[in-house]
């Protein structure tokens, strides 16, 4: 172990394990750190100043903060392609042996960056809205510009290979969810745990304890961190408490549903380690439904906004203390501290104790007099009162600070500037409560003038404690956490007495002053760049310019400048930005607006969002009972809803597999000339029973059901009450009070809910029940001139044409198993739909093929089914209709029961003026004049193909195929006033400029009298 290669590592102190040295690589260079380091603390220990290039100006950037609020230190992790993780904050990434990271921005590298030329020269030429204004025209070029800009500016990149890791979801319930394990959170969790409540305590850091881990304060006369350890030990032993370190509460959703992202293995290696040969899950999304939620999320320190405040070596004051006290790293040699409050004096005291030089504390207040100020004075630290750092000097590292007296209220520099030589400037403009989760509820935060920050507004059941609501004092924060926890439990009807918090010394602090942007001798627009949002390179000048250009609403200012739009969501910059907008507009901060946040608090990897719901588990696939046969017989499949349906069955002909067109032509001819078979099991089936079943059918279908006798089948149209067709199908009368309804494959669930809706909400007096039986019955359609011959070989049902007519159904046996056979036809040919219990289906199907060999029984799929039904002009609801087509538009007057006694669903609407229009689009057939043409489905139809655009569109093609039976293309369409246009020649213009001539014909192309299905 060598200290010398970690120049900024202190000899002692911190919570790192000095006995464990870890090697890592950053931008191709090898470094060493210790177990317990973050990547950021290890980089600082090694004296790495420049960790990134800025997004827009390509300026060198260093580490600013020590937690989730870090705007600059974004890295790309991963030594292999599959392990790439973009935009990881180095301040939140635990160090592990072999960690490999690269700067997110900076091409070709951070030290020498080609974009810096543009940035430095072009800096003043890149005002807000630069990209909108410059690169938008011509619009077609934006994609090209964007690629170049993205490569130059960089935003991290996704891996190009599959992620080897898996991710989990876990549903959780608890009485109290405590977010944040700092002083308030620990006191709250302890209070709830001791009261016997079910508690989940989560914290985003590697180690629980929050500010206590780096605190100078003592609790019960011991270091604060020791109290934290004792509390965590007690909570860990309580089996009603779930402790989740490395777990970020990223989103508060409705009704106390909070998503927690637990990083389970990110601290161990690039990919999840194997346990017993299996990879453990890399991260886990806890979907927590909490009884009450307590936010103890702490506060983020606001940096001051001064010239060149982005040069590496500028940090927020609290981060300096965290690096020194928690990681044993002092990120520089000579410190200038610029503050508006007492609290931040701790940074200088810690720096001094680390044995490095505090050049000066520059305090914006004229007479600071708190206890910490006195301690600093007593150590002989120079305090420059009524002043602030105007500007940092330096390029890739701070080399000095220009300091002068200021009048913050008048926004003026009042004295002569002095240049202090230093390599580090730490600043503090106050503390902003972390109100993100409370904002997710939709409750607008309110400005608290006393703490100079927004405090959360809370919906019922959500509580905030400690710094998260502006109670920054340690002793008060501990008591607040305990008190709020007992309030939360009281709301659940559980009593919990707040724990006695540990004794904390009270430090008398002087009043803070309001300071956001530090004035400069030059006006803001000409002063050195004063950065507000470092991740998006938004400066004070940009905000001022936005207000001058008329953007008065803070929401518009944000969008115009992109302030707060980075992966950090403006955690450091938003309040400063609002304060600057307020100054420019001459208003107060609360008048300018408030700042709200959306989920997620920090970026969440897609893997954790997806969990196990990916690949084969993304969406369930439904298979029919015959699926295996289809697979073995070479079917190509089509997705219909969640179902996998055979699309067509290509055969090998002369050693070559048929194309779809060839297969469909063969299958179609086989059905019309011999016999074919279709697996129709996916059709929705609903069993309807009850004394009022018949009455109910009469109300939901357009046609009549009063006289349908047992053994008979009828086709029905189902409309919504606006008169538009929603679904169709056949319904069979199984008994006087018993019916079997079929629906379209995709409409099954919707129809079921539709029937329940009307029964439960409008006609509960009707005695009728509905049961989905789709999966219980397999359906095999045997169709074609030879269908009767084939089926007669394996059934005991009398198939005599007079005994078993078209639209009859019979009970009996097929292939020795019980079956219902329906004589209904979707092809126009003689057809039998055989329904058997699904587990018998394969046996029956195979028996049919054994007997069908001599008839050349041909399996066909959905494509041939579509062609055959379209030749007969039979609609598919959802393809030939789209929710704006009535039964009358379809010309199906024969299926409309105008004189039924009950005003069935959809009837009244048919006489609405719009529905009764004569020029509504009506269902017709189209025959291309050139028989080789197959029209495009969706193509529009016009009268005059030479009419200039926009043309008058008459309607569109709904179905179009090539018919091997007609030896021609043909189509179904909806056309304005179509039924009066029979024989008219119209045109279908295509994008390539040609227009197909078509003749309007009847939608029934084959066997218009329906003789073939009646044989």
């Amino acid at each position, binding site marked *: 172990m060598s200290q010398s290669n970690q120049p900024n590592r202190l000899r002692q102190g911190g919570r790192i394990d000095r006995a464990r040295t870890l090697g890592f690589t950053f931008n191709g260079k090898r470094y060493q750190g210790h177990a317990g380091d973050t990547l950021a603390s290890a980089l600082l220990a090694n004296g790495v100043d420049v960790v990134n290039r800025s997004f827009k100006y390509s300026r060198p950037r260093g580490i600013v903060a020590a937690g989730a609020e870090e705007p600059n230190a974004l890295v790309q992790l991963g030594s292999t392609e599959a392990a790439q993780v973009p935009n990881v904050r180095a301040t939140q990434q635990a160090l592990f042996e072999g960690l490999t990271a690269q700067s997110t921005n900076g091409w070709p590298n951070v030290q020498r960056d080609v974009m810096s030329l543009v940035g430095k020269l072009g800096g003043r030429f890149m005002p807000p809205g630069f990209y909108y204004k410059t690169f938008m025209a011509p619009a077609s070029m934006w994609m090209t510009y964007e690629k170049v800009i993205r490569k130059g500016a960089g935003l991290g990149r996704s891996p190009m290979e599959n992620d080897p890791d898996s991710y989990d979801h876990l549903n959780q*319930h*608890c*009485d109290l969810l405590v977010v944040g394990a700092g002083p308030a959170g620990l006191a709250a969790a302890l209070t709830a745990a001791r009261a016997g409540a079910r508690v989940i305590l989560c914290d985003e850091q590697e180690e629980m304890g929050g500010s206590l881990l780096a605190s100078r304060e003592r609790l019960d006369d011991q270091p604060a961190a020791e109290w934290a350890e004792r509390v965590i030990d007690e909570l860990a032993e309580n089996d009603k408490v779930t402790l989740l370190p490395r777990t970020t509460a990223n989103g508060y*959703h*409705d*009704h*106390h*549903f909070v998503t927690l992202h637990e990083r389970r293995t990110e601290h161990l290696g690039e990919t999840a380690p194997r346990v017993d040969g299996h990879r453990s899950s890399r991260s886990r999304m806890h979907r927590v*439904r*909490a*009884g009450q939620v307590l936010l103890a999320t702490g506060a983020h320190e606001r940096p001051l906004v001064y010239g060149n405040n982005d040069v590496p070596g500028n940090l927020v004051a609290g981060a300096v203390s965290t690096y020194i006290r928690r990681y044993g790293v002092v990120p520089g040699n000579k410190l200038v501290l610029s503050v508006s409050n007492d609290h931040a004096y701790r940074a200088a005291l810690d720096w001094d104790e680390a044995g490095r030089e505090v050049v000066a504390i520059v305090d914006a207040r004229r007479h600071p007099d708190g206890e910490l100020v006195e301690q600093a004075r007593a150590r002989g630290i120079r305090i420059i009162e009524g002043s602030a750092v105007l500007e940092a000097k330096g390029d890739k590292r701070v080399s000095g600070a220009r300091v002068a007296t200021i009048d913050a209220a008048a926004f003026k520099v009042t004295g002569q500037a002095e240049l202090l030589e230093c390599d580090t400037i730490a600043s503090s403009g106050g503390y902003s409560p972390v109100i993100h989760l409370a904002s997710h509820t*939709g409750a607008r935060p309110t400005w608290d003038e006393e703490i100079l920050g927004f405090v959360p507004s809370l*919906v*019922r*059941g959500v509580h905030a404690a400690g710094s998260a609501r502006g109670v920054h004092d340690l002793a008060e924060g501990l008591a607040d956490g305990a008190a709020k926890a007992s309030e939360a439990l009281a709301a*659940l009807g559980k009593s919990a007495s707040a724990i006695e918090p540990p004794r904390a010394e009270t430090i008398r602090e002087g009043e803070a002053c309001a300071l956001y942007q530090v004035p400069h001798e030059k006006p803001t627009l000409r002063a050195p760049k004063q950065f507000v949002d470092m991740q998006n390179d938004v400066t004070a000048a940009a905000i001022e310019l936005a207000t001058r250009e008329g953007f008065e609403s803070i929401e518009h200012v944000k969008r115009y400048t992109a302030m707060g739009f980075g992966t950090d969501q403006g955690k450091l910059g938003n309040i400063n930005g609002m304060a600057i907008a307020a100054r420019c507009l001459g208003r107060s901060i609360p008048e300018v607006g408030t700042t709200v946040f959306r989920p997620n608090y920090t970026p969440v990897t897609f893997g954790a969002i997806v969990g196990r719901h990916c690949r084969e588990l993304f969406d369930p696939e439904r298979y029919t009972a015959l699926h295996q046969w289809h697979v073995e017989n070479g079917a190509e499949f089509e997705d219909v809803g969640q179902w996998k349906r055979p699309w067509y069955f290509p055969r090998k002909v002369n050693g070559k597999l048929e194309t779809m067109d060839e297969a469909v032509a063969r299958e179609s001819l086989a059905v019309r000339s011999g016999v074919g078979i279709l697996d129709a099991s996916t059709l929705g089936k609903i069993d309807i029973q009850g004394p009022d079943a018949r009455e109910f059918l009469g109300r939901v279908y357009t046609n009549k059901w009063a006289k349908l006798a047992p053994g008979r089948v009828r086709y029905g149209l189902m409309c919504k*009450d*606006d008169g538009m067709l929603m679904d169709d199908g056949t319904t069979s009368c199984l008994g006087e009070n018993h019916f079997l309804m079929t629906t379209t494959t995709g409409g099954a669930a919707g129809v079921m*809910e539709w029937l*329940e*809706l009307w029964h*439960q*909400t*409008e006609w*509960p007096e009707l005695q009728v029940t509905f049961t989905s039986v789709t999966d219980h019955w397999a359906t095999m359609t045997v169709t074609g001139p030879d269908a009767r011959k084939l089926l007669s070989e394996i059934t005991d049902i009398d198939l005599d044409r007079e005994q078993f007519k078209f639209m009859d159904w019979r009970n009996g046996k097929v292939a020795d198993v019980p079956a219902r056979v329906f004589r209904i036809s979707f092809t126009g040919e003689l057809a039998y739909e055989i329904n058997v219990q699904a587990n018998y289906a394969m046996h029956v199907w195979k028996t049919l093929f054994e007997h069908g060999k001599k008839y050349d029984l041909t399996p066909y799929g959905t494509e041939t089914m579509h062609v055959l039904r379209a030749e007969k002009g039979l609609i598919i609801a959802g393809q030939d209709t789209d929710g704006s087509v009535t039964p009358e538009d379809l010309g199906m007057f024969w299926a409309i029961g105008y004189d039924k006694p009950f*005003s069935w669903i959809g*009837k*009244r*609407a048919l006489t*609405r*003026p719009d529905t009764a229009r004569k020029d509504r689009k009506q269902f017709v057939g189209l025959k291309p004049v050139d028989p080789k043409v197959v029209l495009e489905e969706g193509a529009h139809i016009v009268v005059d193909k030479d009419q200039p655009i926009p043309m008058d569109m008459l309607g569109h093609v709904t179905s179009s195929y090539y018919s091997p039976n007609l030896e021609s293309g043909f189509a179904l369409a909806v056309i304005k006033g179509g039924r009066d246009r029979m024989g008219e020649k119209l045109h279908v213009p295509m994008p390539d400029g040609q227009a197909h001539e078509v003749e309007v014909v009847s939608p029934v192309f084959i066997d218009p009298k329906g003789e073939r299905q009646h044989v």
Partner: protein
Amino acid sequence: MFYIHCPYCDEYRDEEEFHPKGQAHIARPEDPETCSDEEWGDYLFFRDNPRGIHHELWVHAIGCRKFFNITRNSASYEILETYRMGERPRFSAEHPQGESAEHGAAVNVADEAGRVADQEGVRA
């Protein structure tokens, strides 16, 4: 994601088990044939879109398949109550704090504890 008390199952379940079906208490006119076109059009197409208390029809689609009503605040997303078909809501735009218990004679909510839970809208 909402946490919804199904008044038939008498349990809180996650929103993903339910389907929203639009505004509640839209009764189909008794005799559609005597409705004017305007009345029929109002029934078909016109719905309220209040900011605040709203009565909605939902169905426990992958639970008990029962339809029921929810009184919900469309601004805060708070669910004030759920009630069965045929029951009257206790909470409404006119009575945002809920109608008094005497008035609620017709209101058929399970019990007082259930009522408190409904007001909370959410409960672990």
